[in-house]
């Protein structure tokens, strides 16, 4: 089993061919320049969606009309399960909160958790992969075995178990952004580890690394200066694709009653779990809006990740070849002649 990221077609190939090519200071621009047509459209659309949610998350307090837990405003109770109206654009929940405000604050929660989780998994996974791949030995073998086992396991269950452990059996410590991020981190560390480790193992045998070693460069210098630069190119792709997956994991946790505590922040998955029972009465607004928010954000992040993957992986890059139209024959074309 070598391809373990079904979402990342051909990442292995991209990893196996470190080009040593330097990117410009603004990686986004580089990526856009390298695409064309549909791929560029995908990248731009994805980036716009992500940007939109980032703005909503940052300015949540200004955008949302009410607090995420408010069931009344100025002493006036909203009422439960009120249909969308000019007062409540997206209606109210069974707890009497404004759905629109909860969706907006949900964006904030999601963004915070995801950014934190992705950073944490990179900080843990990348150095671990570098060390393991460079030094090899029994530690490498054990780590590979453990991460393989974790990887084969349903990620949601893994996240749940870790989040139970962090909660320490009591609900008071649960529910923070950090603990949710840590639960998710555990799921994604193995992915960075694998990719970085495999790339490091490959890079270790490269002539330029060998040359550096013969010249007496220290392992630290080799890893940071020669291997890291090449290996790190694939990290943005994995990070974006994982971020999309992490949003789904967070929502899954929330749906099952884990992750963010309802009093600590609005969370889309949690709201959807409450909305399931509303469907039998034909009430759609409590579930549809947070659901659309999740789907849209994941689509945005995934589009960005996939386009980056395509860009880094020339095998997948679209080169649309134009149908050849033969010009009419050259004038003065030689005809058969005998001397």
């Amino acid at each position, binding site marked *: *089993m070598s*391809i*373990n990221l*079904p*979402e990342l*077609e*051909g990442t292995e190939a991209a990893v196996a061919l470190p080009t040593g090519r330097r990117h410009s200071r603004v990686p986004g621009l580089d990526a856009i320049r390298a695409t064309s047509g*549909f791929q560029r459209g995908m990248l731009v659309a994805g980036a716009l969606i992500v940007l939109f949610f980032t703005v909503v998350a940052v300015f949540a307090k200004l955008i949302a009309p009410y607090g995420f837990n408010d069931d009344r405003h100025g002493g006036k109770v909203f009422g439960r399960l009120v249909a969308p109206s000019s007062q409540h654009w997206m209606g109210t929940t069974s707890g009497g909160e404004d759905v629109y405000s909860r969706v907006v604050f949900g964006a904030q929660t999601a963004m915070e958790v995801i950014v934190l989780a992705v950073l944490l998994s990179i900080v843990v996974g990348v150095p671990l992969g570098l060390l393991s791949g460079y030094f090899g030995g029994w530690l490498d073998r054990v780590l590979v*075995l*453990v991460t*393989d*086992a*974790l*990887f*084969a*396991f*349903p*990620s*949601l*269950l893994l996240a*749940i*178990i*870790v989040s*139970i*452990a962090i*909660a*320490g*059996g009591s609900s008071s410590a649960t529910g923070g952004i950090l603990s949710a991020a840590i639960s998710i981190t555990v799921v994604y560390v193995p992915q960075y580890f694998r990719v970085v480790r495999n790339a490091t193992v490959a890079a270790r045998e490269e002539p330029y690394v060998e040359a550096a070693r013969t010249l007496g460069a220290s392992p630290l210098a080799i890893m940071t200066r020669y291997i890291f630069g090449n290996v790190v190119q694939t990290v943005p792709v994995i990070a974006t694709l994982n971020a*999309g997956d992490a949003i*789904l994991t967070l*929502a*899954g946790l929330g*749906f*099952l*009653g*884990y992750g963010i505590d309802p009093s600590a922040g609005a969370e889309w*998955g949690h709201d*959807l*779990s409450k*909305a*399931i029972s509303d*469907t*039998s*009465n*034909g009430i*759609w607004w409590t*579930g*549809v809006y947070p*659901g659309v928010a*999740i*789907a*849209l954000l*994941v*689509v945005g992040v*995934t*589009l960005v990740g*996939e386009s980056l993957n395509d860009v880094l992986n020339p095998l997948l890059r*679209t080169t*649309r070849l134009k149908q050849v139209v033969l010009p009419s024959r050259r004038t003065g074309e030689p005809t058969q002649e005998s001397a």
Partner: protein
Amino acid sequence: MATATKSSSGSLRTYLITRLLLVIPMVWILVTLVFFVLRVVGDPIQSAFGGRLSPADIAVRRHAAGLDKPLLSQYWHYLVGVTHGDFGTSLTDNTRISHILIVNGAATLELTFWAVLVAIAVGVPLGRVAARYRDRLPDVGLRLFAVLAYAVPVFFLGLLLKLLFATNLTWFYASGRASPNVEIAINNVAPNTHIYIINAIQYGNVSDIWDVLRHTVLPAITLGMLVAGVFLRLVRVNLLQTMRADYVEAARARGVPERRVIRKHAFRNALIPVVTVMGLQVATLLGGAVLTETTFEWQGLGYKIAYYLSRQDYVAVQGIVAAVAVIVALTSFLIDVAAAVIDPRVRY
């Protein structure tokens, strides 16, 4: 060339044995991890009954469950149990996990079977279309569809389907595996498989079969879509690769019609890596099953996990999760074996 054949069939055996040997540490690592991580939480009896039972009662239960022994001895006991298929007994309702595995495991098996069927029925033909119209409009649309199929959370798709096809159109049922009277009836068949569609067929009443199917459609689609997008992309990518393969060009050069070239040569060869990657989808499917089953109150393993989680019965959670680890490891082993057997290069 008999000798060559013999030695390479030996290599298949070696492959199978090494692959099987990988299952053991994998299961061991996961079971160990789950055991210790859940014990970090503290005493499971305390979390399940704390505040509801007197300290004396808790002590009695703790002793009965062997939880007053040293942690390592508990671990050893548990590990020995797992090797015998004994995953413990739930604290809150005193049910043996092995019993849950049979009854609710059958439900999950039934659901995932239908889901895989949906995923294949959707993903494979669409993947072929996408490959055929590479980089043209149908391909672009299908790639977006695959992204969307992946991006829509399982429970949200479930919610939408319920709203549309159960609440509004009332074509299908929104929850459960069968209507209550049907459920009672078909659970009375002689060898009770706990797989409702088989039970219903055994029972022989067409309206019961219909009832079971109408309960199955929405959860199966919901879970199936989770991997349909993955199948679509896999088929597309592999087909694009095999359509460029040398043997495909050679078949064209022999005048084999294009349709047959694609069907018999490109497509068949493209399926081998698809089968391999399917092994990796087992974990995705089981994770998705937890959410699907919760959404549709489908009483499978995932439903049970969520149920025991909500009651903070971590002994039951630990038992089921450990069993899931075993299932995942064994299934991916079996799929790897299947992939190896399909490919004549490995088979011989």
